[in-house]
């Protein structure tokens, strides 16, 4: 199905055009063109912006700001974003990674959106033409969002502080059974002083494992220390069922893979 595409030099103008009913924003095309090809009749028009700021990556002073049009391949190859490379490479095959954008990944429904899981663990801030929002609030309200995402920003983590795991049946590329990202800080005695754990496929979008985070505080990252966190990991989850895995299976294997990630 052919759709009229309108291109704007500025995000502001594109945002105005996006307010028309049935209009969707075109980033890399891996979500919206796919939907159109699939026969999604709710899509009647597309807009995009060629603003160069959307494709910029800024890494300075321990902070990173990634434009919404930056692709997964660009992130995976950026020397300043090495800790995130694994999460970026978890998205699709090489062609998809050349097209899929950071902004689009925030809207990808489970079982997709592996990079958004990483951003959620990193406590990223999502910038839109209307302002900035914590990623958790943005994700909760994304279905009603009509403001074009312009960038995401977050504090860079040391490689040992950020952990990411994608579980799939097909290697090296496969759809997620689940994905997990964690940002962990430890006190001088080795106990966990701060934990943010994000899960993919355990709801219709990325979510925090807050119960597991809470019980992990003050514990050591060994088999005994993480036991309570693994037991609590499934609290509040509502895993998806798809051809890759059932909700039951995902719930069963979550503690296994979370344990591997925490002990890695």
């Amino acid at each position, binding site marked *: 199905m*052919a*759709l009229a595409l309108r291109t704007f030099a500025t995000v502001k103008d594109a945002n105005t055009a996006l307010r028309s009913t049935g209009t969707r924003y075109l980033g890399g095309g891996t979500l919206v063109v*796919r939907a159109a*090809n699939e026969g999604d009749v709710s899509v009647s028009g597309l807009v995009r912006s060629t603003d160069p700021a959307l494709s910029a990556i800024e890494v300075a002073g321990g902070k990173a700001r990634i434009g919404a049009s930056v692709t997964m*391949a660009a992130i995976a190859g950026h020397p300043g974003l090495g800790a995130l490379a694994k999460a970026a490479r978890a998205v699709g*095959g*090489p*062609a998809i990674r*050349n097209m899929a954008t950071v902004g689009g990944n925030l809207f990808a429904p489970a079982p997709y959106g592996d990079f958004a899981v990483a951003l959620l663990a990193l406590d990223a801030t999502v910038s839109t033409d209307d302002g900035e929002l914590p990623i958790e609030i943005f994700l909760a309200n994304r279905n009603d969002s009509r403001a074009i995402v312009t960038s995401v920003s977050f504090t860079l983590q040391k490689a040992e502080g950020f952990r990411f795991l994608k579980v799939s049946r097909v290697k*090296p590329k496969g759809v997620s059974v689940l994905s997990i990202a964690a940002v962990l800080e430890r006190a001088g005695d080795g106990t966990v002083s701060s934990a943010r754990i994000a899960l993919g496929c355990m709801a219709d979008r990325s979510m925090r494992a807050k119960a597991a985070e809470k019980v992990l505080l003050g514990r050591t990252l060994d088999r005994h220390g993480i036991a309570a966190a693994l037991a609590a990991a499934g609290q509040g989850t509502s895993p998806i069922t798809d051809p890759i895995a059932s909700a039951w299976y995902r719930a069963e294997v979550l503690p296994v893979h979370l344990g591997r990630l925490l002990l890695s």
Partner: protein
Amino acid sequence: MAKVPVQFTLNGSEKAEFVDSGTTLLNALRDKIGDTSPKGGCHQGTCGACSVIINGELRLSCLTLAETCNGAAITTTSGIAEGGVLHPLQRAFLDTFATQCGFCTPGMIIAAKVLLDHTPNPSRDEVIEALSGNICRCTGYEPIIQAVLLAARANSQNAA
């Protein structure tokens, strides 16, 4: 539906067409220009049969809108042979029986070409990674992997 002009270089030749706004590059190539080497498989970005090279990057033409390719340099499998001589990858696919029904072959060759353009002597794991976005339902993949490794060896021998 509004018609929009699109100009790009396809396999070294200038192309200019009017397409319906929102037309995918896959449909523009096959239906307007007559290059049927990219195949329309899943139209969902899953099978890789429609893979093309746009400005040196591997892309899926089923998910790319033609009008976003204005001014781009596009390469498809039909354009990689030179002077009537098959590209080493094409030759290797024949020599190792890496083609059965042939539907996935153009996408496989394009994905492999991007790999060899950047990594002339890839490891087996790098070949598997490079082809991970392309689905084949006939060969079991092993002959395809062997074909890419054979083409890489042929390249390195030619360069020596």
